């Protein structure tokens, strides 16, 4: 019997909001798919586009960047920069033909454990039919 | 051994060689020529032009795996397994090699032989047969092979030299490898008549007159270079150099490389040791781990390239490393012309 494809998602979570939100989901015993590899960063604005390309290069099927809501950034402005920069990254990846569903961004606050699980659930649902990401992956 | 092959049966000959990988110069959709593998069913027509990438891409690939390493963890102990990766078995035939490119292969052979013989290079080289095509017209407007002791019909490095006589090829077999290929389709070849031999010689002599560019007194320049290491000429000539690497990557005889480890997994450790092309024109080519860089500026790197081609190689092997193909001149984005620079070397101080 063939195993169903389980996408591997790399999630860059900002420490002050989204990572705390994911912790809240855990503490509240909310269930969500285990396909995520979380990486905590200080701020969504500190995400270099290089991390995203590198994640796809190493074989991630999907990449999520999640930060604080606009106005709530712990460093005041970081997420505004992220909003602009990562919009460009998304447009560029779509332009070269990568499926648009593979790169997502979300605002998840420290109190939104429920939202975090929904974001992940939806992401996994969208990635399953696409299959493994082979376009940018390095064949070791 | 000298033979004649009619062009009408040329593709039949190629068909007989189908057990090998066969490369022909081919035009791609952007109008550039490059050596590409053909299927034996494809129509084998030998056309004349200068490819962007020389046969070096096949003889000395841009990426070559030396070995694979992996760590195996068993219980309490761990072992490191190292496996050598040699080039695959199987013969390769490259058609349409220009005599200058054949000469470049011959020069590369000198470098990779000697005191330390490179097993990877030689395994591949011994499996490859080069079938040259003499240049009846210069493939590039910047060819100057005669000036560096080559010629449009030189034979070094080649296994067979074809000379185009219009409806037939004059086939000169130069090595055992070449002989094997002719033997594979013996019936297609005939012995040459004396007029055909004369015609081949006439075509070759005529081709020498067609070269448009010349570098005068290359040996004198080589001598003069010795005293010009600290000259200000290099600063002036390298002002417009953008240190891109095109001249070295597309040069048939440039062979500098870098060895690096490509790690596929960290825990447990697994990866490959890989050789890739490198170029003396990149700033970090000579970067020491202390941070010191003996060639920190463009002037020293341009000087290095010219010295290597026209002085150091002459000192060690008594040959110019430059084969006069003209690619570096045609493709330099800012128009730096090696012949022009060397002309200035010759007239410097006189």
């Amino acid at each position: 019997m063939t195993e169903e494809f389980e996408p591997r998602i790399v999630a860059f979570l900002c420490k002050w909001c989204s990572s705390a939100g994911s912790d809240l989901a855990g503490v509240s015993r909310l269930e969500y798919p285990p396909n995520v590899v979380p990486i905590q960063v200080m701020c969504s604005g500190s995400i270099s586009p290089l991390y995203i390309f590198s994640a796809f290069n190493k074989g991630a099927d999907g990449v999520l960047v999640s930060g604080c809501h606009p106005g709530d950034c712990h460093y005041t402005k970081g997420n505004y920069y992220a909003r602009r920069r990562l919009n460009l990254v998304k447009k560029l990846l779509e332009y070269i033909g990568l499926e648009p569903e593979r790169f997502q961004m979300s605002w998840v606050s420290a109190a939104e454990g429920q939202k975090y699980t929904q974001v992940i659930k939806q992401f996994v649902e969208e990635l399953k039919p696409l299959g493994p990401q082979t376009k940018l992956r390095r064949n070791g | 051994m000298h033979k004649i092959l009619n062009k009408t049966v040329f593709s039949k000959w190629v068909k007989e060689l189908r057990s090998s990988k066969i490369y022909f110069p081919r035009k791609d959709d952007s109008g550039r020529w490059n050596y590409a593998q053909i299927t034996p069913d494809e129509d084998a027509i030998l056309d004349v032009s200068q490819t962007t990438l020389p046969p070096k891409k096949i003889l000395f690939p841009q990426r070559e795996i030396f070995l694979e390493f992996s760590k195996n963890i068993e219980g309490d102990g761990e072992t490191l397994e190292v496996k050598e990766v040699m080039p695959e078995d199987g013969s390769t035939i490259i058609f349409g090699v220009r005599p200058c490119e054949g000469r470049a292969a011959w020069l590369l052979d000198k470098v990779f032989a000697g005191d330390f013989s490179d097993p990877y290079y030689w395994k591949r080289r011994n499996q490859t047969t080069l079938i040259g095509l003499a240049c009846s017209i210069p493939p590039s407007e910047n060819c100057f092979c005669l000036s560096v002791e080559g010629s449009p019909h030189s034979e070094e490095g080649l296994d067979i030299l074809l000379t185009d006589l219009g409806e037939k090829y004059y086939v000169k077999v130069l090595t055992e490898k070449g002989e094997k290929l002719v033997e594979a389709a013996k019936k297609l070849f005939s012995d040459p008549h004396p007029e055909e031999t004369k015609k081949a010689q006439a075509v070759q002599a005529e081709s020498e007159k067609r070269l448009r560019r010349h570098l005068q007194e290359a040996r004198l320049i080589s001598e003069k270079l010795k005293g010009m290491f600290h000259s200000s000429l290099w600063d002036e000539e390298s002002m417009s150099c953008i240190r891109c690497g095109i001249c070295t990557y597309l040069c048939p005889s440039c062979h500098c490389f870098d060895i690096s480890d490509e790690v596929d997994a960290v825990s447990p450790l697994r990866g490959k040791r890989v050789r890739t092309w490198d170029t003396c024109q990149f700033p970090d080519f000579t970067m020491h781990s202390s941070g010191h860089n003996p060639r920190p500026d463009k002037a020293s790197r341009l000087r290095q390239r010219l010295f290597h081609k026209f002085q150091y190689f002459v000192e060690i092997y008594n040959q110019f490393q430059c084969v006069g193909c003209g690619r570096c001149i045609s493709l330099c984005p800012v128009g730096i012309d090696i012949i022009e620079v060397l002309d200035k070397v010759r007239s410097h101080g006189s």
Partner: protein
Amino acid sequence: MAKIEELREEARRLLRDGKVKYIIGYGTGRDGWRAVPIFIRQPEEADRLIWNPTCVHNLSRFLADEKRRQAREKKPDRRPVGIVVKGCDSRAIVVLLQEKFIRRDDLVVLGVSCEKTGVIDEDKLTDKLKGKKPEKIEFGDQGEFIVAAGNEKIAVSAGELLAERCRECRANFPVIYDFLTGEKSPRPVERPFGSIERMEALSSEERWAFWKNELEKCIRCYACRSVCPMCYCDECVVDSISLAVTADTTAEEKAQKIKWVQKSPEISENFVYHLVRAIHLGGRCIDCGECERACPLEIPLRFLNKKLEKEAKELFGYEVGFDVSQPPLISCFRDDDPGDFIR
């Protein structure tokens, strides 16, 4: 029409009065018809300057070299450098000034207007001449090109020989200059991003197939990076040179060194290199087309690097390379930046 004599006179004056260290301009190459970058220091050399449709190079590329040269010298000559620019090249200077990479006082900008035409695409010229060797190419008075080849002179309409980027040009005269020759006549461009729009109209799979096919050819010679005026980083993503490897470095340490891109020209690594370069040029690329011209394998890099110029305009209303007082694209933001892609 831009008058070369005016340019030469200005250059002569600047060099004679010692106002500039040297002038970066266009001169005739050894083959007698192609322009090449030249560096002139004496007033007599001003006669070597030329202006014709083969002046394709973006000379602002050499401003980074000047900066490096000054950093190495113990007593640098602090006089400004003169530079001849077309409209597109001047936009590159604007971006470098926005980023404070160079100072305005360090430059004397000698502007030349392309007016109704621009520069040629050499492949189109080769096709047109069908084997004849060109001897000279000049601008005509009516906006056409006069091509002298094989003992005859023909007038060719600009449309036949113009470089593709000139058809989408939004700056046919310099936007910043200390001296200008030629008219400042704006030339309306119907579809300034037409080539990108055509690419976007293809399906996702078609675009992928296109880019995979093109980037497989890449031999990572980095000519595209070397010829770009904006790629001035001393240490690029692909040259991880600051991490020393000695005889004592263990295998594990080497394995854990940050290496974003492998040196091998495999398709996945080529993609990472070109994507990183494109994103680093977001809001900085001014479509001078040099990356595509320099590429020995004719990879159409313009389509990749220019895409973000279009996005900058459409998403953020940001015009790249026109206003020196504007901050760089990704170091600013607006409260109403689009966020509809964010969950």
